[in-house]
């Protein structure tokens, strides 16, 4: 049985079902990260002393990772645009770059940020600042990992759909892109909140 409205928009919603699904999922993600941001505000405003992020975290590396995620958002949207222009080779290139940049983000995060913190015995249990720092950035890193896995599937085995159902494949890449941009969006708020303030 064919799943309806995977390609054409549903008449009553004006969008295909996958897009409505990803927006509802992203709404739940807003609440998840929103709850943690609210927790951060509560912890910070309730604390007698709060360490300055720039004194405890590596701002140049955080800035570098911010730029990596922004560039990966561009390559992701270019992957989608390449498919819209029926250029599959460029799609593979841009999607491959997006995956590479996602992995680079995680390498910087884990090897050059988390590892030195652990070496200096800074753990989530050290204090409230490091507790919320590791929870927020750790959850975000898991989202990046999830995005890499999904994008990796669409770069590799999942890309076979391009030959059989090109418009459905374009829609899938658009959906994967919406998720990836959301992950970028979350980092845009995490970076100044944790690293600079």
């Amino acid at each position: 049985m064919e799943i309806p409205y995977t390609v054409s928009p549903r008449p009553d919603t004006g969008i295909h079902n996958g897009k409505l699904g990803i927006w509802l999922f992203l709404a739940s993600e807003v609440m998840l990260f929103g709850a943690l941001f609210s927790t951060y505000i509560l912890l910070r405003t309730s604390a007698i002393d709060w360490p300055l992020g720039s004194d405890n975290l590596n701002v140049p590396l955080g800035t570098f990772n911010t730029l990596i995620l922004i560039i990966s958002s561009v390559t992701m949207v270019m992957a989608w645009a390449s498919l819209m222009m029926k250029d599959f080779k460029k799609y593979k290139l841009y999607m491959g770059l997006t995956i590479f940049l996602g992995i680079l983000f995680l390498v910087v995060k884990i090897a050059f940020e988390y590892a030195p913190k652990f070496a200096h015995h800074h753990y989530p249990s050290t204090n409230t600042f490091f507790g919320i720092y590791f929870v927020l950035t750790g959850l975000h890193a898991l989202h990046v990992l999830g995005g890499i896995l999904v994008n990796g599937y669409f770069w590799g085995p999942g890309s076979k759909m391009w030959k059989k159902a090109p418009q459905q494949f374009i829609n899938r890449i658009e959906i994967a892109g919406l998720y990836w941009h959301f992950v970028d969006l979350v980092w845009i708020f995490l970076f100044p909140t944790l690293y600079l303030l």
Partner: protein
Amino acid sequence: MENTDVQEVKRHIRVYLYTFSALAVLTVVTVAAASLNVAVGTGIFIAMVIATVKGTLVAGNFMHLFSEKKLVYLVLIITVFLFFVMLCIILSTINDQVLSVS
């Protein structure tokens, strides 16, 4: 974005590149602004304003929110409303914290 022709996509690509430039500049501005010698409250306000502008650029241009259907806006409006309700509930416990400390 369905049925978008090639010319329209090329126009979008130009917008993506302008957006990227703006995001890169604003990232540098965020870091520079954090080094200004201002009060904590002012620093938080400046950083959040810049982050909101950057977020709007990502959501509007990369996620195509500037040209999305009404239903998506409705989902987001409900989400933002519920987020603020949650924020108010969580922040309403600040007084409890202060009382327990004193």
